């Protein structure tokens, strides 16, 4: 963590000095006057289309912060999971904030910025009336899932649930509503977006999220100066509680990861509270 903090200080110093020997993407952005950010447009509340057709959500809001800091206009470019890294590689976007899980093989293709800005894990969607509070309570209960999901085995083996796995989320959600199972085990970020819909008003995501996998925002490989700037940006988001505030703004319960990161950076620099 110390190393990270040093990195942040270096990043801050660099971005303040604003000088670099070679022209890089930051110079391009300044020259263009526009920051192009790849975000999701189909993943509420992280990135979605509002009624007017604008891309809004938690990630577009973060992108706006970056544009404001750089003093340039923001252009949001919708990407999907299968093409997001290529958009960055080809220089069609400068920055990618698109719900991407941080994995080592991806770090070889794009420059994922440390620290991680967000995270998703495994949780369940269950009727509020069931009153579930612990994973262990799933013992002996039928729980819907998706065929091939890695946490099915864990839910079965460690918590004793009887997994009823379907081929897609639509089938599993229908089976949950029809009462075939007591809960649906899946990515918590997906479940959060369902909970914001009126159809799921009587349901909740009651358990402690497990198997957290961090999300990474990314710049193109070799854009070290922009990456360092973004490191500082992410630390600032965690430190100032910006991500927690955005979660609240978009109707998401504060995730344990965002809370933990906020606390972590507060502990490093408690003076921020004054």
């Amino acid at each position, binding site marked *: 963590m110390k190393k990270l903090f040093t990195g942040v200080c270096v990043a801050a110093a660099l971005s303040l000095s604003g000088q670099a020997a070679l022209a890089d993407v930051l110079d391009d952005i300044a020259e263009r006057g526009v920051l192009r950010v790849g975000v999701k447009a189909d993943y509420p509340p992280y990135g979605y289309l509002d009624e007017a057709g604008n891309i809004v959500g938690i990630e577009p809001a973060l992108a706006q912060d970056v544009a404001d800091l750089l003093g340039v206009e923001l252009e949001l470019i919708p990407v999907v999971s299968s093409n997001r890294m290529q958009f960055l590689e080809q220089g069609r976007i400068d920055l990618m904030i698109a719900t991407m899980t941080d994995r080592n093989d991806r770090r070889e293709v794009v420059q994922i910025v440390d620290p991680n800005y967000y995270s998703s894990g495994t949780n369940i969607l269950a009727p509020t*009336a*069931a009153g579930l509070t612990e994973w262990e309570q799933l013992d002996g209960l039928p729980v819907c899932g998706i065929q091939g999901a890695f946490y099915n085995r864990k839910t079965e083996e460690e918590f004793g649930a009887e997994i009823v796995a379907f081929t897609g989320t639509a089938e599993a959600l229908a089976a949950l509503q029809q009462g075939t199972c007591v809960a649906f085990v899946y990515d918590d970020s997906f479940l959060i977006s369902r909970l914001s819909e009126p159809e799921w008003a009587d349901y909740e995501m009651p358990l402690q999220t497990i198997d957290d996998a961090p999300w990474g925002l990314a710049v193109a490989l070799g854009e070290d100066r922009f990456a360092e700037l973004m490191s500082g940006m992410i630390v600032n988001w965690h430190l100032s509680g910006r991500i927690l505030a955005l979660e609240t703004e978009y109707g998401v319960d504060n995730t344990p990861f965002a809370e933990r990161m906020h606390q972590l950076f507060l502990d490093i620099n408690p003076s921020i509270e004054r």
Partner: protein
Amino acid sequence: MDGIEAWFLDLYHTTGINLTIVYDAFDRERFLWGLLNTVILSVICLVFSVIIGIIGAWLLGARHAIPRRIVQAYVQFFRNTPPLVQMYFFFFALGPMFMTTVERHVGQMVFVSETPLLTSFHWAVISLSFFAGAFNVEIFRSGIEAVPRSTIEAAEALGMSRWQIYRDVILPLAFRICLPALNNNLVNLVKTTTLAYAIAVPELLYMSNQIWSDSVNVPEMMTVLLFVYVGLVAILVFAMQRWERAMKLPGFGR
């Protein structure tokens, strides 16, 4: 047993062929449970589809038009729709129409909820039995229509009733005539049970899918699946051929 497990673990380490179903107790249990479910599902559907076939073919020969029309409509409906679509239709569209309440123990609390009366396994049995049954009706009809008219006339001349003629003369002969076609359809039925994975029936394909997702041994499990089905169908064909031979009438059908 330990020796075998060690051998397969060694096989994985030396060749990369990962057969977790041999050395991993959890995977082995899942696989055997899937195999058992496939066998149970197949046997139940085989029996029901044959019963449906016999009754349907008998109703097709009824004097009244109404039962004939009903059976014809049934055959058309089930023969003209894909079994996967039927399975989805039964489970997701018909299932919620028959509900029951269950008490589930959540920790110390009891959670009372609505749940479909019939499980996915029940719907798979219903769907597959009616699907194969529709073909069996036609297969038995072909057998019945192949029974020589003169044989039936001879039975009538002996003063046998319609039911007696059907049970003691037509059906035994028809059965022997249509056995090869019935064999074909029943073999198909065993293979069609794999579709039940779509409505989460924990049969062999479903369990294998879960195993290869967890252990990332897709080619190995695909191969195992293929051979297991070859074996399952071979057992069925062997039994049916034994039956065919046991029922052979000297001089009949030659």
